[in-house]
């Protein structure tokens, strides 16, 4: 079977998924600030094939053009908005949370908002507090928003196709430091709502997304050398959470480390820890451990930034604690 995308890096895989959907569905449009240039990567090259009617550069008016996407989605298009850094969603928060996320519910299911909002999430080295956040928990908590956060080209490609086809608003995050991460897109479709497991293991489950998932996989290799078999559950769909996949892993290993590149309080890791404890208490051999960023904004100085974000070694250390608890 031939691969469904020949993209070999993460954001080009997103662009390829968008291109494929655009070719087959004339209602797919994409807009945002400087999407022709493609500042963060996922829209790079699209304007060349689809032109300025489909790929539209916007004024810096996030509340306006995100809101316009909500309206266009209700009206019959499938708009994709590239917001650039996900922190810029805060400027458009009402349209995303209060409008896009609630309209189906409030209208008793009459209206759909099939749109995708793409944003980079996470620290990529000295961008300071307004350009370094992982805001996934905010959107997980909003109600009515689907959230995807792929960490590989494979996940990025398939989840983007699934996101564009979804009849719900999807917040689609990717880590800026993984934008050109290499990886094959395999001919094994993933869908919104799926998690991806690998490597498999028996001693503990490490749950993570984005850069933390990448570091967790590296940590798993280190742990394996020390005789600890960690299973990494990449929770690339964060809303709704893929509980079946998560619980299957947890029931197998009985030990859990949830890692998150976001503030600990009310983070995705916190939700996972609480949800696992409620659902799989009897299967747990040790308390669930969370590893996340302290409850501070992300500082500018690279030394400070690095000190707050879980590293591969931090994950190894925490995993060893969980494995031996």
């Amino acid at each position, binding site marked *: 079977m031939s691969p469904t995308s020949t993209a070999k890096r993460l954001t080009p895989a997103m662009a390829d998924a968008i291109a494929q959907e655009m070719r087959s569905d004339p209602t797919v449009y994409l807009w945002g600030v400087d999407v022709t240039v493609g500042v963060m990567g996922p829209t790079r090259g699209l304007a060349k094939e689809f032109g300025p009617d489909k790929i539209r550069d916007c004024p810096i008016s996030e509340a306006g053009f995100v809101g316009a996407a909500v309206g266009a989605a209700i009206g019959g298009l499938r708009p994709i908005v590239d917001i650039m850094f996900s*922190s810029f969603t805060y400027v458009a928060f009402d349209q995303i949370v209060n409008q896009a996320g609630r309209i189906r519910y409030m209208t008793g299911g009459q209206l759909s908002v099939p749109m995708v909002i793409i944003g980079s999430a996470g620290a990529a080295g*000295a961008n300071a507090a*307004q*350009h370094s956040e992982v805001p996934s928990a905010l959107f997980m908590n909003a109600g009515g928003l689907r959230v995807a956060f792929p960490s590989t080209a494979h996940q990025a490609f398939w989840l983007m196709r699934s996101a564009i086809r979804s009849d719900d608003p999807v917040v689609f995050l990717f880590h800026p430091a993984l934008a050109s991460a290499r990886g094959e897109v395999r001919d094994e479709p993933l869908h919104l709502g799926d998690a991806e497991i690998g490597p498999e293991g028996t001693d503990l489950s490490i749950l993570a997304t984005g850069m933390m998932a990448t570091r967790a996989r590296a940590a798993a290799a280190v742990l394996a050398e020390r005789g600890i078999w960690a299973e990494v559950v990449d929770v690339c769909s964060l809303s709704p959470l893929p509980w079946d996949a998560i619980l299957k892993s947890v029931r197998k290993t009985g030990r859990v480390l949830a890692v998150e590149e976001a503030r600990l309080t009310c983070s995705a890791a916190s939700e996972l820890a609480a949800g696992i404890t409620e659902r799989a208490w009897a299967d747990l051999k040790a308390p669930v451990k969370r590893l996340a960023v302290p409850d501070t904004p992300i500082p*500018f100085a690279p030394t400070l930034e690095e000190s707050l974000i879980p590293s591969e070694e931090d994950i190894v250390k925490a995993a060893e604690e969980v494995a031996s608890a």
Partner: protein
Amino acid sequence: MIDRRTLPSRKEQNGQMTEKVVLKERGESWLRTMVRGRLFEQSLGELYERGELVGVVHLSIGLEATAAGVCSNLRKGDQITSTHRGHNHMIARGLEPERMFAEILGRSTGYCGGKGGSMHVANFELGSVGANGIVGAGVPMAAGLGVAAQKLGTGNVAVAFCGDGAANQGVVWESLNLAALWKIPVIFVCENNGFSEFTPTDRVTAGPGIADRAIGYGVSGVVVDGTNVGAVSAVAEGAIDRARSGEGPTFIETRAERWRGHHEGEESYVGTYRETKEFKDPIVQLIQEMDAAGLDGSLLYEKIHAEEKDLIERSLAVAQQAPLPELSTALEDVFS
């Protein structure tokens, strides 16, 4: 019915010469500020080239006259809010190059202890609430600083610097509406450099001009040549005086092109999006004006340039030797 004749009109202040008395009194200080800002940013550009800068740096080379022209009319206690492209605003407000370098290099002696970086340099004592990473976000804060000054009776004003791109953020006009209604002592300074990031401004900005939009709020909108420091200063001085005496806001649009791209290092992913050409130089323009007025700007420039070059070099050397922040500081300053 609105009587349109009573509405303020958009004024153009272009090509005007600054009077000799004014040049004599203020020329040297403008020149020094602009040269300092220029040298400061040129050395940031060099640091970037050599791979010694982290994060994203947006240079404002070519835009010095707006910063110098506006800030030279401010006094202690006045506050500015700035943008991602704010180094010149900070220099013109009197922030020290050494501590600015230290901040941008992530050192403990930086104005924000290394927590802010290039897009967040700030010093309240010197009258700068700070640069900002979010386009348009500083503008309502300037309005609020004006309200605080008004209610506390300090007689201070606030200046909101923003770019032409920011003029498409609704919050800018929400702020102007408030400022007009409440007669807030705030001056809006929109630096129109012709590009909103990588897109030509007119492709994303409807209407005859940004300053014209102010007229809809009953606020006078003035367009001024942003390479002419004397012209900028004259407009700003009037606006600041009116704001201070309770007459509310003015919207100033300065026009000048930035010489550098949107940010250093953009060539790695952006193709050519604008033509290369000779840009107007606000520093050269001031020197020529001073020369023409018989004030020997050229000689003065030689002297100032040498002094400022020395200052910038020394400041950078000290900043580069400054200690990195203690890691424990990453957890400080979250709450009072």
